Structures are given as C-alpha cells and as structure tokens.
C-alpha cells in the first residue's frame, strides 16, 4: 500500500505540448495556452514577488540559498556553486489545478552545457513540495521548433531525477538523495503531444535483493497493473540501467512510437485523466473527479533571446558608461563618462574620491552621483538599491596602491547583492571602475580600469569571504583580511622599498591582479571577475587577460 502511494506521488505528467518558451518576459502570453486550460490547468508565469508570497515554497528553496547571504533573504538568483548552475527564480512557471500546483524553475548552468535543466517543485498531499530535476538534451533545431510552438518528441531527450532532499551541495555526490526513476513517454489521450509518466524502479542502493519495506523498488509495485522499472517491458520504458546504477540516465527509451508504455503505471497516469476512475487514495491530491493529479511541469528554456557572450555583454555595458546620454541629467548628477573624466582630474588630492553609478528610480536612466567623502581616505559607497556600480580614484598620495584592493573586488559583489535588493537582472550590469595614476605623482598618466562579473557563480562564492569579518566561522582566519592581505602582498612587491611609492609600471599591477583573479587562494580558486582597461580618451574598453607566457593580452571591446 505504501508503495502504491509512493508510485502515485512519483507519477509525473509533463504536458509538453503546452510548454512555455521562456523568452523575453513580455512576449510569452501564457493565457493563450488553451490546451492546458482545456485540461483544467491554470498556467502562468510568475515573478519573484509572487513567488515570495508562498512561504512553503520559500521554505522549500531555503536549502538552495547561499547560507552566507547577508540577511538570509532569498535571492532571486540561487546559486549552486558545487554543480555550477543557478536557479533563476524570476523564470518561474506556475501550474495550478484545483488543489494542486507546481513551480518550475530554470536552472542556468554557468559553464556551457548542452542540457537544459529545470527544477520542479510539485505540491504533495501533505502540502510539502517534492523536487525533481528535469534534464533535456535538445538539438538547436528542436529548441527552435519548441520556441515556435511546434511539437517536439522528448522521448529520448529527457532525464528525470527526483531529489529526496533539497541538498544541492551534495547532489553530485549523494546518490542516496536521488530516487530511482524510470520514465516512459506515452501518447496523450488527445492528439496534442506526449505525456511523461515516471515510475519508481529498483534502486541499487542495497546489495541484497530483499524486499525492504522502506525501499521503493519495482518489486513493490503490485497495484495499478503493469508497472515500470524492471518489470516494465513496453517500448518506452526508458531506463535500461534500472537496478544497476541507481542514477537516472538518459538511457535508451526504446522506440519512440509514443504509444503505450507498459500499461497503466499506477492508476494515475494520464490515461486516467479523463476522470472516469476515481482514485481511492487519500495521499495524493485529487481532482474533482477523485483522480490523482500528477506532478506537472512545463519546459523552460534557458535561452533568453540574447545570444551575446558574457564578454560581449560586459563590453556593451562598459561602452554604455562612455556613451553620451540621450536624456537630460540635472547637476550635480553627471553621466558616468563625465564622472570618470572628473576623477581623472582629482588624483592630486588627498583621499579617495568617487561616484556611485545609479539608475534613477523614475526612469532607470544611468547617472553618476558624487560621494561626499570629506573625512575618509577611502571611498564609502552609500547603500542604495538603485546603485549598480561605482567609480572611485586611488590617489597617488602613497597611502594606497594604484590598483584594485581586495575590498574593491568584494565591492563588486556588494553592488550585485544590493541592487534592487538582490533581485538580479543580468550580472553584466555591475561594474566597479578605478581611476588611478600609473605610479606618477602628477596627473600625467591617469589610467582607468574596470572590473566586471565574468562568472556570477564564482563571484557569489566570495560571499563566504565577505561574511567572515572577524573570523565569523571561528576557523582562525578572518577571510576578509586574508583576502585583502593576499592581494596587497602582491602589490607590495612593486613598491619602492625606501618610500613605499607605487611602481610606475601599471602592467605589473595588472598582471598581479589577473593572477589573483584567477587564483585568489593559491588553490586555483577563481574570483569570477574580469578586468578591463579604458583607452585614454574614454571611448573604448579592452579586456585584459594573461597569456601563457605571462604577457597581457588586450582585447578591445570595439574594433
């Protein structure tokens, strides 16, 4: 009986024809998804604010959040640094039918990944959420077909993993956290696509073959007719590895004739969605006809319609700093370019000077706001939710280095965390600009550099450092100081040993920083930050990288 209930919960019907392309936010009209509506489902895209209304979902997502995030607020972007992706909680598909609902999220891998992965949180009868990772391996053609509303047969294109616990950090290594599933595509009773039915199969977590009542396996599936798993013999049974690896693989779904899949799996498959056979099961969510409502999801594509690379996006955003605004800017506000140019003239003053780069709340126009910094040597960027970056100067007064400090690097993460209360747009927005002298006491050779987010997942890892002020984790090392000391130590090498004056060769600092960005802890850990340099007349930026022979490559944003 317990197995029967488990099987019911593990039946997923993916309504693939009614999938939603997550393209630009304003060009997906979910209300026109008539097929889903015909089946009694309400489907809509919701935003982060709507998501936040559901405390149970927030609770379900809690384990995904960076535990070190300041304030413990759920960020719009939830990172899994171990597995290299983030969940964009702004790309959420909400599906509802009577007492059932689910949330499907886009899982965005940072590294190139041919698979498209979605996270499904599906409401269960006990009001908790069961989590599934849905992986799609689609060709470009299939993606295009899907975007255009065509039918794509996902039979051989999909992998489903059930997460028994929300523990992404251990997801890659903790196989026990996964349940063993088999899946089969069946033709929808209506001729509008395919449903996916997921069944539990024999897990290899035990060396014996005894029937453990706590173990969900195929041998337990005694109800609902023929079942999946080892005993599933239909052409679409999918997982040939069932009972051997315990990890759901893409497997061999068999032929994709899309017809039967070994019959009814659990009494709740889509063939029974006509409501003629009420389920006698109180542990699933029932529809008005008494049938279990299966876990239901819709595909969200990662593609947001923007084909630019990270570097191209960063360049575009940097170039915007130098563009002439086509909107009026009321003094004392300046355009970002005016602010940077102004800082170039202030390098002979004592103490750092700077501007915060803000979006006006009324119209989101970009402006630079002067920061009054009368009593401090170092710049203090005010807390503003419309601040997407900052620019400041390092005077050549001997106090500091002519290049980014450790805290300057961490400030980039702070801008990202603060902007719009941490609800992220594209990470390429954020920037930290530094105006400094290349070791000269005069203003003869001011240089302008910027740091940008190259890898938001890696950058987010630095949150652990930010949160370790005063050695909060009690491991004997204050990571903030340690981070600052390590980059400072690299710069100290170049100082004049008698006067402490910086070296006039700015390339020394560029190389030192680039090495640090690529390995900040001596163990190969990257910061996820890239470095750019502006040309003298502030019309173009170049990305700086280190070549294999330790020379600096300069790749202009605009040729």
């Amino acid at each position, binding site marked *: 009986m317990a197995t029967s209930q488990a099987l019911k919960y593990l039946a997923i019907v993916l309504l693939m024809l009614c999938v939603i392309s997550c393209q630009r936010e304003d060009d997906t009209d979910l209300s026109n998804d008539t097929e889903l509506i015909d089946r009694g489902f309400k489907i809509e895209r919701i935003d982060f604010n709507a998501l936040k209304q559901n405390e149970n979902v927030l609770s379900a997502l809690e384990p995904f959040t960076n535990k070190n995030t300041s304030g413990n607020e759920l960020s719009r972007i939830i990172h899994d640094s171990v597995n290299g992706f983030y969940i964009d909680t702004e790309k959420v598909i909400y599906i509802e039918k009577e007492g059932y609902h689910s949330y499907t999220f886009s899982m965005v891998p940072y590294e190139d990944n041919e698979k498209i992965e979605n996270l499904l949180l599906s409401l269960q009868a006990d009001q908790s959420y069961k989590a599934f990772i849905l992986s799609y391996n689609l060709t470009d053609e299939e993606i295009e077909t899907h975007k255009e509303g065509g039918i794509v047969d996902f039979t051989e294109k999909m992998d489903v993993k059930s997460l028994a616990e929300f523990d992404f950090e251990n997801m890659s290594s903790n196989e026990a956290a996964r349940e063993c599933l088999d899946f089969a595509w069946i033709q929808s009773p209506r001729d509008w696509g395919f449903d996916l039915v997921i069944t539990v199969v024999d897990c290899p977590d035990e060396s014996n073959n005894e029937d453990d009542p706590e173990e969900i396996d195929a041998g337990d599936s005694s109800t609902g007719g023929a079942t999946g798993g080892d005993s599933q013999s239909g052409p679409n049974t999918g997982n040939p590895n069932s009972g051997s690896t315990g990890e759901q693989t893409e497997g061999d779904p068999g032929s994709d004739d899309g017809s039967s899949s070994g019959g009814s799996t659990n009494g709740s498959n889509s063939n029974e969605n006509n409501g003629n056979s009420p389920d006698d099961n109180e542990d699933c969510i029932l529809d008005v006809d008494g049938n279990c409502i299966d876990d239901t999801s819709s595909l969200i594509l990662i593609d947001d319609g923007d084909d630019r690379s990270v570097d191209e996006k960063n360049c575009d955003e940097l170039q915007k700093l130098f563009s002439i605004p086509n909107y009026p800017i009321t003094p004392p506000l300046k355009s970002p370019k005016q602010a940077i140019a102004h800082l170039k003239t202030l390098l002979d003053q004592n103490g750092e000077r700077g501007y915060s780069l803000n979006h006006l709340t009324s119209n989101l126009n970009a402006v630079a706001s002067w920061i009054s910094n009368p009593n401090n040597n*170092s710049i203090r*960027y005010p*807390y503003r939710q419309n601040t997407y970056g900052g620019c400041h100067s390092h005077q050549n007064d001997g106090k500091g280095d002519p290049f980014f400090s450790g805290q300057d690097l961490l400030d980039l993460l702070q801008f990202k965390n603060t902007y719009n209360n941490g609800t992220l747009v594209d990470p390429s927005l954020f920037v930290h600009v530094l105006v400094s002298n290349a070791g000269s006491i005069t203003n003869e050779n001011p240089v302008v550099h910027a740091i940008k987010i190259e890898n938001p997942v890696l950058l987010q890892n630095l949150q652990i450092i930010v949160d370790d002020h005063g050695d909060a984790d009690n491991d004997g090392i204050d990571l903030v100081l340690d981070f600052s000391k390590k980059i400072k130590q690299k710069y*100290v090498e170049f100082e004049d040993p*008698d006067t402490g*004056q910086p070296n006039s060769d700015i390339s020394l600092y560029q190389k030192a920083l680039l090495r640090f960005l690529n390995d900040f802890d001596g163990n190969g850990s990257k910061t996820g930050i890239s470095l750019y340099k502006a040309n003298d007349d502030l019309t173009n930026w170049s990305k700086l990288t280190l070549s294999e022979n330790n020379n600096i490559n300069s790749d202009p944003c605009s040729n």
Partner: protein
Amino acid sequence: MISKSIFLIFVAFGSFSCKAQNPIISLDNKGQDGIINNAYYKDIDNDLDAYIGTWAYENGDSSFTMSFLKKTQSFNGKWYQDLLVGDYQYIVNGIQVLDYLPRLTDSNINDGQHTIDGNRIIYKNFFPKCDECDINERRIVLYFSDLDRNYLSSEIAIRHYIENGVEKIKVWLYDSDSAVLPYEGAPTEIRVPYGEYIMTKQ
C-alpha cells in the same frame, strides 16, 4: 626496536616541520620576492616585541587603550608568520563605548578574531608619513576592526619610542579601504575616531 621506531618518528616529524616552514624570511623582506608558500616570515629583528603590552591614550574622562601580544609561527593557510595581535577599549566622557580588551586573553577567541593584527613593516616616507622618524626607522602597520562596523576597513601604523624614559607609541588610525555601506544611513567611520594618538605604556 621501539627506540629505533621512536627515533624514526622524530626524524620524520622533524623533517616535516622543517619542510613546512621553509624558507625563513625576515618580515622586512616580506613581499619583496613574492609570497612563498610554506615560508616562515619571522620577526628576525624583533620589531614586534617592543609593542607587547598595554598602551593607553587619555584625555580627561576619555581614553583609548590597546593591548598587544606577539604570536609566532601563525599559519594562514599559505605561509607562517609572526604577528602582533591586539584588542582595544574606548571610553568617551567616562562612558565605555566599546571594550574588546577581554578578547585578548579569552581562550575562545582565536588568532583570526582579534580586533587588531598584522606585521607589515614600513619606513619614514610610507603612508602615513612620519616626519619625526629617522630615515631607517621602522613602524608596524596593523589591521584594525570595529566588530559592530566590520564593513569598514581600517588600519593603524604604530611607532615605538621612548620619551623622558617613558615608553610610548604613536598611533596613526585611518580608514584603509573602500566599502559599500550595508544599509541606509550606515556609519562611514568606526567608533574610535580616525586620527593620531600618543599612548603610554601601562
């Protein structure tokens, strides 16, 4: 047989220890050749020793007191180093603003949790410049934290000298790095005012 085993263990341990802290480099040369993993940046000239103890600045009912200890062979995950660590107390008009001094001897506080630590050696013309210093006189730069405003980075440079037979230190307290304030209206300075202080050994 047993004694031979013990001997081998000692040899192995000794070899490991030597390898783990090699080479030994003077604090004064730290950074000149880049940081070397597992090196031991040692206070060979005992520059840090002069600061060990408690120092106080007093002005009427206000006071600023610091205490320092020297930590040897402290490991930061990459290299070993001798360090000054310290904590402090600040009183204004008889009202205690903060008191971190008990942390210095609190066994629950580790080396990374003291409010002052460092070992960077600077000279006369380094920031903050020291007009009264001899050309080769050495000062120490230390990180300085206000735990309630830990988003602010500050440092002190300290100079030890003897005046009329009294041990004193001059302290330059200054903000040392940028910050993004964590909330609207967040203070932009630590609670001990930036500036210069003359402290007498207690």
